């Protein structure tokens, strides 16, 4: 039977096991939408903005580990999706984005709604394709899913000209396997390197595990727990890695980096053996590279060879999947004699006693930290929490202790404001039985508000916790510290009434102005199983995120809450961002 390109495309997506597509129709994708409408296997979620589609697919992928699928039209359709694609790319999220393109004969003609989708997305995807002939549709879809989900995952864009979706051909068998001579991601690590690493770890006096997003994406949580407990050594996790190792466990010393705990950063600074597991020594982690971990040897485990020795030179590089490498390390260390590190622990426990996440409550205002702590209590720490970007994101990361992977969904690499709400929608679609909470701020939420409408249409009951401090808080914090309190453009005037706004979208809105009302409001919100609830919480506008390593600082130069005098202007590198 002859099928058109659009039908073949949908057929291939079904064969890939796609259950949900997030998209928005337009001229170039009309045939694809026509083919979608004729089937029932794949549910299409009609977003209100293409960026929302990409973030929703991203949140979906982060939650259930399956590739998110996006369908947008040519021109503005794909350009709107670019921010979402770049977000997924920075955090290594598997995603396949199908974009319509003007008919092949019109390409290059400045046709209506034409952009060079492949050119525009090239630098923010793992790979992209422009399909030139209907015969390439099936193999391209196969390649796209293969590339997006293997090795270091990432987004893949398939650009399909309209004529390709209209032309007809006999449907061939969907290829079961794929061989690409130019793409063979390393999966198995070298035994020699594993042995060397095991020896170094076993003999270290002050070892620390530094685990990142690769432990979550690589589904290595079980192995990470086993290895950490086998070694009995401290583990710190990056913003992207939270939950792979339980945050409430005794061996966990919290998040590291710019807003990491005092004990995590001090332990990194003093360690003699740093084991990086699926982490990439990002500038928000390392601070000043010259002062980073001065006495440590580095073992660096990563699936992507280009991450190794990029920022920090690895003494023992191990290229491979986190899961398999950790398994091999466990095997190697199971019967090994491991150095006694009780002295190291007593040092770490002294740092712990500094209690760097302590904060002072003030009467009459709600502290944002209290909101997260209350949310943690009310959800018993079991919700899937998405966030936007800024102070609220850091507080959520610091005070909501994630005990399982894929429960903390945030834009770590690109830092995309507007991510939280659509990502929460995607997460709820992926895991309808779980409570999904979007922790946001009044700045971020306004970047993707329109998705409240999608959430009503598809009944994705998410709880929005808006830390409303009337400021772009993180910008304000930096202005306070580093720009002599010149608050340029960080004040949000003329805010909407979020309760009425939520109500106008058909959701429930709750305003919280007093701390006494906080817990009852959150309890009420979570009780509403079938409704999206917008909890607008008026929080202390002057609160800052502590601890903090000023950009360009070392791990041992931390600012702690209530100890502002530690800020030394001379030591702050104003060129650092």
């Amino acid at each position, binding site marked *: 039977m002859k099928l058109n390109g659009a039908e073949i495309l949908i057929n291939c997506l079904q064969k890939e096991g796609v259950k949900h597509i997030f998209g928005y129709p337009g001229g170039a994708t009309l045939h694809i939408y026509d083919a979608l409408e004729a089937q029932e296997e794949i549910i299409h979620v009609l977003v209100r903005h293409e960026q929302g589609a990409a973030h929703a697919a991203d949140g979906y992928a982060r939650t259930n580990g399956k590739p998110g699928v996006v369908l947008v039209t040519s021109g503005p359709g794909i350009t709107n999706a670019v921010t979402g694609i770049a977000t997924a790319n920075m955090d290594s999220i598997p995603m396949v984005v199908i974009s319509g393109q003007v008919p092949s004969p019109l390409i290059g003609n400045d046709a209506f709604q034409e952009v060079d989708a*492949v050119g525009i997305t090239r630098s923010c995807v*793992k790979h992209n394709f422009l399909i030139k002939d209907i015969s390439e549709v099936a193999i391209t879809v196969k390649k796209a899913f293969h590339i997006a989900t293997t090795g270091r995952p990432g987004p893949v864009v398939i650009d399909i000209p309209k004529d390709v979706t209209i032309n007809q051909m006999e449907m061939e068998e969907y290829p079961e396997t794929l061989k690409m001579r*130019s793409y063979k991601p390393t999966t198995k690590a070298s035994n020699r390197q594993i042995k060397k690493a095991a020896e170094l770890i076993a003999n270290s006096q002050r070892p620390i595990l530094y685990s990142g997003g690769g432990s979550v994406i690589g589904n290595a949580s079980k192995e990470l727990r086993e290895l950490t407990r086998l070694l009995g050594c401290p583990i710190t996790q990056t913003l992207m890695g939270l939950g792979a190792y339980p945050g409430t466990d005794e061996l966990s010393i919290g998040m590291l980096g710019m807003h990491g705990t005092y004990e995590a950063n001090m332990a990194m600074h003093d360690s003699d053996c740093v084991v990086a597991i699926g982490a990439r020594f990002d500038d928000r982690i390392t601070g000043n590279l010259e002062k980073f971990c001065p006495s440590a040897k580095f073992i660096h485990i990563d699936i992507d060879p280009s991450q190794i020795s990029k920022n920090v030179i690895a003494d023992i590089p191990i290229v491979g999947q986190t899961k398999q490498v950790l398994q091999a390390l466990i095997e190697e260390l199971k019967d090994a004699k491991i150095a006694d590190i009780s002295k190291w622990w007593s040092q770490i426990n002294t740092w712990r006693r500094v209690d760097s996440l302590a904060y002072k409550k003030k009467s009459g205002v709600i502290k944002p930290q209290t909101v997260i702590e209350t949310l943690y209590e009310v959800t018993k720490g079991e919700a899937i929490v998405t966030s936007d970007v800024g102070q609220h994101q850091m507080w959520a990361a610091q005070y909501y202790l994630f005990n399982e992977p894929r429960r903390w969904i945030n834009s770590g690499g690109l830092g995309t404001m507007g991510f939280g709400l659509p990502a929460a929608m995607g997460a709820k679609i992926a895991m309808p039985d779980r409570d999904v909470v979007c922790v946001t701020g009044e700045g971020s939420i306004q970047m993707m508000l329109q998705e409240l409408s999608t959430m009503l249409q598809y009944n994705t009951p998410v709880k929005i916790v808006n830390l409303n401090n009337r400021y772009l808080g993180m910008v304000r914090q930096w202005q306070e510290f580093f720009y002599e309190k010149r608050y340029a453009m960080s004040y949000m005037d003329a805010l909407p009434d979020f309760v009425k706004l939520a109500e106008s979208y058909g959701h429930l809105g709750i305003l919280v102005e007093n701390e006494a009302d906080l817990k009852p409001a959150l309890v009420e919100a979570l009780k509403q199983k079938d409704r999206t609830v917008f909890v607008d919480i008026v929080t202390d506008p002057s609160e800052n995120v502590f601890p903090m390593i000023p950009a360009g600082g070392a791990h041992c130069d931390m600012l702690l809450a209530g100890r502002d005098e530690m800020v030394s202007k001379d030591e702050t590198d104003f060129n650092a961002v």
Partner: protein
Amino acid sequence: MRHIISVVIENETGALSRVSGLFSQRGFNIESLTVAQTNDPSLSRMTIVSTGNDRVLEQIVKQLNKLIEVVKVSDLTSRDHIERDLMLVKICPTKKDNFDLKQLVDVFSCKVVDVTDKTYTIEISGKTKKLNAFLDAFDPASILEVSRTGVTGISRGKKLI
């Protein structure tokens, strides 16, 4: 340090822009870049001359390898190799060029490929330095036009890319 990097890549549209885009995106520098199909028409080979320290070079090679369509990458300068640059140069000798052009062509073992009443077009190939030396032999005013291919290279002996 100067490096000559050979890249074998799938002969697809956009392959060149993936490579050149990578260099500009990551702030790597390109001194020259040549590209053409190989004996296997489905593959292209690029030769890129770049400068940078060992860490930069390591990143260049790793990032190139990360491109999905790249089949093979190697740093020719790390081993025994042959490199060639081809140049076509159009000259109109001035009074300052007080040498015999025929003799100069012999010294540089190049050839005159086109002559008019006012111009000579010369074809010369060799290492970049040799080509530069050839140009230096002339009064700058007599050089009308230069077109160079950029460096291409191959390893010596049985060793393949």
